[in-house]
């Protein structure tokens, strides 16, 4: 045989900047690095690490493969065509398209040919993506078609066809069959923190403005008062008189497991990464939502990690309450529901990890008797994670009373 078989852990390179669409595009000069770093046939059994530079086409293929398995795909976007909502270097999570989506305003990952598109608005809506791309590429060039993954917004929809356009682009990309859309962007992270993506009602307005080329101006005008309102609302929510009145309303809030219909809403409203129900069950995860009438006010995830290791145990994840509904005790209700689930699994403690800069969350957890985990494998692992990813997390734990205990 040519050499000892090897499996090598590799990482993609970080690139400082790039032009063009917000897409998973490689640095053209970096392809050689892959061959140098991980060429086949090397002798010896040491596992070589190194840089793995994937082409845009490779990332497209991997995204399609991962999303078709019902999983989400996380990668770094390049370019400026989705400014101001997505900037070069932002980390995007693309999730499968649920139901009849995507909707107007959604940001989607779609495959198109370099040099433009061009599906005719009146084209056959049943056309497969491969046939469409082949036809488009033939029209653009006689050379081998270069497909690329582009992350842009749906700005209009007619039946099974979607008009796609970058928020910062002068022209639309064209009409694409719904089935050609690989997935919907459900989360944007910048510097390790989630950012607003501009979806839901906001996305519809963005799509309307985008289709008229007035988005950038509108964003500047919209941002100032929204910031002021948010800050004022948070101040008001701290007032005892507000909190006592609001808690009466919280009595009508229902905490229950998320329905399938909730997934699209949760993904769109909260940027939540949503593996399908089977994947969540396999991972020991239960998603709970807080509901008032038809409105989703917040959610939390309970995860029972059965495998041995630093993260073994019962976890509370992603506790989130929408801003207008804070200060009403909804977060406390969600935590109580997770504790109940954990007790049903026989757990004697509940764990969570929180950003130490999130003062509001820390105050809530302290009030609910959670205490820091400062020693042991979990604390060590989180410290290592913080060093590797630059995103510090503090683990907290709380004892749970057993059956019959107070």
């Amino acid at each position, binding site marked *: 045989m040519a050499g000892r078989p090897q*499996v090598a852990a*590799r*990482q993609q390179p970080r690139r400082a900047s790039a032009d063009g669409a917000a897409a998973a595009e490689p640095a053209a000069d970096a392809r050689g690095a892959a061959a140098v770093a991980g060429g086949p046939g090397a002798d010896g059994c040491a596992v070589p690490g190194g840089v793995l530079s994937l082409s845009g086409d490779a990332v497209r293929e*991997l995204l399609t493969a991962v999303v078709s398995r019902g*999983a989400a795909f*996380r990668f770094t976007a390049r370019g400026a065509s989705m400014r101001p909502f997505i900037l070069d270097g932002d980390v995007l999570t693309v999730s499968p398209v649920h139901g009849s989506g995507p909707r107007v305003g959604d940001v989607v990952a779609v495959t198109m040919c370099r040099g433009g598109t061009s599906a005719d608005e009146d084209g056959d809506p049943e056309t497969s993506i491969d046939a469409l791309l082949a036809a488009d590429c033939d029209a653009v060039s006689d050379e081998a078609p270069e497909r690329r993954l582009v992350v842009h917004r749906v700005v209009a929809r007619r039946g099974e066809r979607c008009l796609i356009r970058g928020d910062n682009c002068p022209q639309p990309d064209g009409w694409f069959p719904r089935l050609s859309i690989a997935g919907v962007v459900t989360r944007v992270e910048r510097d390790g923190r989630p950012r607003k993506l501009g979806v839901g009602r906001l996305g519809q307005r963005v799509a309307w403005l985008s289709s008229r080329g007035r988005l950038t101006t509108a964003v500047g005008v919209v941002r100032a008062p929204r910031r002021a309102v948010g800050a004022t609302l948070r101040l008001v929510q701290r007032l005892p008189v507000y909190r006592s009145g609001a808690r009466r309303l919280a009595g009508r809030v229902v905490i229950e497991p998320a329905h399938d219909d909730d997934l699209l809403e949760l993904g769109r409203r909260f940027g939540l990464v949503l*593996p399908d129900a089977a994947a969540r069950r396999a991972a020991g995860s239960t998603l709970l939502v807080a509901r008032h009438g038809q409105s989703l006010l917040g959610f939390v995830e309970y995860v029972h990690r059965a495998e041995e290791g630093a993260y073994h145990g019962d976890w509370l994840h992603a506790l989130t309450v929408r801003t207008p509904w804070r200060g009403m005790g909804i977060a406390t209700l969600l935590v109580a529901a997770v504790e109940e689930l954990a007790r049903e699994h026989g757990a004697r403690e509940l764990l969570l990890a929180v950003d130490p800069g999130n003062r509001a969350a820390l105050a809530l957890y302290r009030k609910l008797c959670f205490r820091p985990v400062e020693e042991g494998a979990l604390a060590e692992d989180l410290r290592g994670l913080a060093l590797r990813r630059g995103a510090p997390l503090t683990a907290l734990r709380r004892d749970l009373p057993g059956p019959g205990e107070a």
Partner: protein
Amino acid sequence: MSTGADCAVAYRPSEDVVARVIEGEIIIVPLVAGIGDMDDELFTLNETGKAIWDRLDGQRTLADVAAELTDEYEGDAGAIETDVLGLVGELLARRMVVAV
């Protein structure tokens, strides 16, 4: 890396990975908590590793795989079997394959 692979057992790729041949190279993306993360580590196999991976179909035992590779590469049967066990043991430790 521990080697817990068994010659008499057949293995197949785990449901927790997505593997694709891209530009002649096998790229393996682990799915962690339902997410394939390109910003985390990806894995590749060299040419020899790829020849083994392609035969991990849940039907052929590792002994079958080693025998096929011995015929194809005309190598030393014992050394090839050791290589196969070593690689599959490593893949098992990384939860990239499962026994059938």
